[in-house]
């Protein structure tokens, strides 16, 4: 699975660096290094909706520290 965390200007200011860190830790913790490729993307086109993350072809907006675990479960763990 390819995961792109948006690190474009808007998402960056909304705290995408933190989401990248959480994502790296979650991938590590679940031993998904072989199955998941994590990268940054510059702008997924949803600049006003909080941090955007693209899981393969699906874009999820408004990812935050609060809903991170839930999001990771739904879009990564449940699908792999």
């Amino acid at each position: 699975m390819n995961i792109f965390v948006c690190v474009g200007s808007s998402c960056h200011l909304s705290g995408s660096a933190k989401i990248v860190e959480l994502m790296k830790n979650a991938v590590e913790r679940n031993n998904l290094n072989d199955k998941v490729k994590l990268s940054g993307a510059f702008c997924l086109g949803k600049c006003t909706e909080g941090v955007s993350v693209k899981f393969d072809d699906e874009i999820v907006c408004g990812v935050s520290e609060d809903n991170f675990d839930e999001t990771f479960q739904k879009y990564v763990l449940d699908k792999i």
Partner: protein
Amino acid sequence: MRKFDTKVQYLKYKILREVARYAMEDRLLDCYTEIPGIIVKGPESTMRCCIYKERAIVSERIKLAMGGDKSNPNVIEVIDIACDECPVSGYNVVHDLCRGCIAHRCEDVCAKNAITFDENQKAVINKENCVECGRCASVCPYGAITNRKRPCERACKVNAIHMGKDKCAEIDNNKCISCGACVYQCPFGAVIDKSFILDVINLMKKSRNNECKLYAVVAPSISSQFSYAKLGQVITGIKELGFHTVVEAALGADMVAYAEAAELAEKKFLTSSCCPAFVDYIHKQFPDMVEHISHNLSPMAAIAKYIKETDENAKIVFIGPCTAKKMEFQKESVKPYVDSVITFEELQALFDGCGVDITKLDEGILDNASYYGRIFARSGGLADAVSQAISEHGIENFNYDPISCDGIEACRAALLRASKNVLPNNFIEGMACSGGCIGGAGCLTHGVKDKNEVDKYGREAYEKTILSAIGFMK
């Protein structure tokens, strides 16, 4: 608020703007012959002997705006009919100013006995003996000896431009580093950088049709430009043109600073690789020093590489102050990452050619890089960033001693000493333009406060350290 420093820039801009407008309307090839009449309306001439010559020169400028002479690898070209063939008499005595004094300091200081005196006791320079050292001019108490050197030759610190056949300026491509100093200084606008705006317009159209995703990578020196509007409005304007998004080249600078610090600690001596004119200068004038050039890509190429690796649909245009970048992006090592390069002058022409008034737009956001990446735009910034990167790496057993060379003459002095092993420093930050990138020939304006603008922009960065800016890549 003035958009340009000089009327020559304004003239060049008007042609680029019209070319952009016609190209956007898909009628450039049918109608480009109309443009000279739009620029030079007549019936009175305002720049040259007659409107027909003015229009002929505009036609030549149009060719350069459309990419110029494809057989000439250099991006800097001379428009021969625009060259005013300025006199090149070198040092001369201005007879009205020479008082025919008794001291004759000019005569005493001349090592070549080139100065004699006429029947009125006024100095005369014998051109056969004169070696143009300029010492007589420096000692004359009346300032009566002047150097009539061509502005292009005076601007060119690497001696690449000279009077050629028919007295017209000629560029020696074996020496030219494409820094654009002559372009900015020629009072007749006879030396011009080729433009790739047509390639960029094609990419903009493709991006609008979703055939590619067009990224603008903008240089941090943009902070001192477009001062008649807000930076955020410029960002929105670039997106209005059809770009998918805008990314800071300064983030590439963060990446470069971090990698360069590690490379420096390993190799113990390096010269920077960010400024393409400086790198070209080393290749042309100090070939023995080439091995010491940092192996890192430039910030432009580094960030473009990252984008291309994560988005296979990406096309990338660098927008900056630099004419030498127009050479760099054609290098084999950079070509795969950067698709085209334009200057701030050309961006202004694109805005106006496409009817985008940035002062009317909402402010977009541009924030990818750290303070350190952003201050690359001014002399000394790169050296500061490498210092920061050394401490962020936790490198302790290395005594960092940089020298920041502001302008190509300072670069030359440092390289000369380094090549003889007498340079005490272990890192050469080379910037071909005076002041760093903010002094670039492709800037709309150059001002004494530009450095402060860059520093201010640096302090506004959300990320305060290099690692926090590039953390997502690790």
